[in-house]
């Protein structure tokens, strides 16, 4: 029986791992909805917003951030064990975030570059998404996530249905918005054709190429896009490697493409 049927409000928990706080802030950025939402869901654990905490289990856990420490790799297991549904929000939680650039480098050297006494710092060699550690029920992509999509996920859960979040590309949103294609018309490199929709095709609307902050769409043809950017726009391989290696660098599709470009550049 669902919580709604029993009369008790479903319990929401919000958890933070390595991240910028922006995705959980999206919840507080729902200025028009947040107070009514708090009437539909019990905000049981949300340290950024409240001091009081209600013990689990939680009906829905929103998880922000990636796993970068041994302690966090244990903490996420505890979070999973007290969560009926676990939804990851944002590029850090779904792909490892910008901090996953260490996965392509020597993490120890990274620590030494920032801290005078590296021995005070305990961190893993990699930054990995939540799904590498525990079972995830739903992943909401974006850096940052779209707050309306977050409300859709919560609303869908309250109604007992799957969230309706299209897994198509930014191009679809861009066409619907009536934007001029920045790649065709201006020769601006754009990751729109391989990037997951959700932002509303913002960058092209501002005369800028998409930089892939929503991560890969379903079955992205990155190889074709990279070839097109190289052959038609004259993009160099190191630049292409960098384009795919940003906020979703560790997502399998973008990772493979950046490594492919890097290897080819080295030949």
């Amino acid at each position, binding site marked *: 029986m669902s919580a709604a049927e029993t009369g008790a409000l479903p319990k929401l928990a919000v958890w933070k791992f390595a991240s*910028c706080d*922006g995705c959980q*802030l999206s919840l507080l950025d729902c200025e028009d909805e947040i*107070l009514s939402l708090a009437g539909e869901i019990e*905000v049981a654990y949300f340290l950024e917003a409240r001091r009081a905490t209600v013990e689990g289990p939680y009906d829905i856990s929103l998880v922000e951030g990636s796993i970068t420490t041994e302690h966090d790799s244990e903490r996420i297991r505890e979070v999973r064990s007290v969560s009926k549904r676990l939804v990851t929000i944002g590029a850090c939680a779904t792909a490892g975030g910008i901090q996953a650039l260490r996965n392509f480098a020597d993490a120890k050297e990274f620590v030494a570059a920032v801290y005078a006494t590296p021995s005070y710092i305990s961190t893993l060699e990699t930054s990995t998404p939540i799904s590498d550690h525990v079972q995830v029920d739903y992943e909401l992509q974006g850096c940052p996530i779209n707050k309306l999509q977050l409300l859709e996920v919560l609303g869908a859960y309250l109604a007992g249905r799957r969230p309706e979040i299209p897994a198509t590309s930014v191009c679809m949103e861009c066409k619907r918005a009536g934007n001029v294609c920045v790649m065709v018309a201006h020769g601006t490199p754009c990751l729109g054709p391989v990037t997951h929709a959700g932002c509303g095709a*913002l960058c092209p609307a501002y005369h800028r190429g998409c930089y892939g902050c929503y991560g890969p769409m379903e079955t992205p043809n990155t190889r074709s896009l990279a070839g097109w950017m190289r052959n038609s726009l004259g993009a160099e391989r190191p630049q292409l490697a*960098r384009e795919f290696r940003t906020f979703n660098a560790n997502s399998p599709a973008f990772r493979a493409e950046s490594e492919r470009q890097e290897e080819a550049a080295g030949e």
Partner: protein
Amino acid sequence: MSEGTRTIRTPALARVEGEGEMYVRLRGSEVLDVQLRIYEPPRLFEALLRGRELGEAVDITARICGICPVAYQMSACEAMEDALGIEVSGQLRALRRLIYCGEWIESHTLHLYLLHAPDFLGYESGFAMAAEHGEIVERGLRTKKAGNELIAAIGGREIHPINVRVGGFYRAPERRELEPLREKLERAREEALETVRWTAQLPFPELEHDYEFVSLRPAAADEYPIDRGRIVSSRGIDIDAPRFDEVFEELHVEHSTALHARVRERGAYLAGPMARFNLNRDRLSPIAAEAATEAGIGDGTRNPFKSILIRAVELVYAFDEAVRIIDAYEKPDAPAVEARPRAAVGHGVTEAPRGLLYHRYEITEEGGIAAARIVPPTSQNQRSIEEDLERLIAANAGLDDEALQLRCEQAIRNYDPCISCSTHFLRLEIDRV
């Protein structure tokens, strides 16, 4: 109360941005140890920026903080422009101030209404406060929304805006895109004045200290510091950004993944709204200055608990400044100043909502980033926070553990600490022997 040792510990600070712990140990009224332990995992931005193209620092450093991404974008831009030898002026600079006003509004309102005010009124959260003071919290949410709308109008979205670049913007807004905001901002300015009156009557715990305040001070006589200026202090510092390292240093202490900053051979200093206000009261707009006077802080204040009141005054200023900028706005001919890369070192410093934010980059001839350094406001304030706690506990040792713990947490929140920012940065626990 016994003369034994007491430990007071908040393992996970709430209503702050990021992950920190408070640890305090005292015997009687003698404070033995105070630590703001920052255990937020380090994300190693300064390392991962190396090898990236200089323009990428704008979007990458924004990801340090979801609450103040514009501050990171602005300091990064200023530093890169310094390296490239270009200056962004006129309407482009005005647009930068405008989007920055939006961030001050969004960040200050979030902190003031949802994170800090509940401490003064005895609520555990803004949600609990809303149950009894619905109209007040709704006013806060409306004010916050006005700030977010301003950021989104210029930047495309409120978190990690996409329209900011080195040299200016990808696309400058049309006048007609900004005009509809004007009326909303004017209305919100009225509500910000109510916010000043409301915060002025909160019960302020007693605590005063002769801080060394550090903030920017702009050259223009009518500008409150936001996007540029010289770095000045209440004890005579007056330097340009490139001399930051000569005057300030960062120390790596064991209990923190944030580095502690201090004035070389002097010690802690305070950055943020209280520093900006005390050093630049003469630069407030007439409406904001009058609001400060009516609220009883017209001659400045050294009580850190009154930072909430200063944030309210800065809200009035930010709305006022935004309206002024929109009134004078004409779309610039080009959305950005273009420049060729060159090997150089660039420094940039702006006023994030929480205080001074310094960036330094070494750029290669091809426009790559060879080295990066970022000094966020919270790591600059970390030592001041701990010293405030020492003074507060010594004066309030008679309180029971729970009351003392709450008071200490409130004192930490005076700084609106942003822990994600400062990591390369906070834990609070009270330990009484």
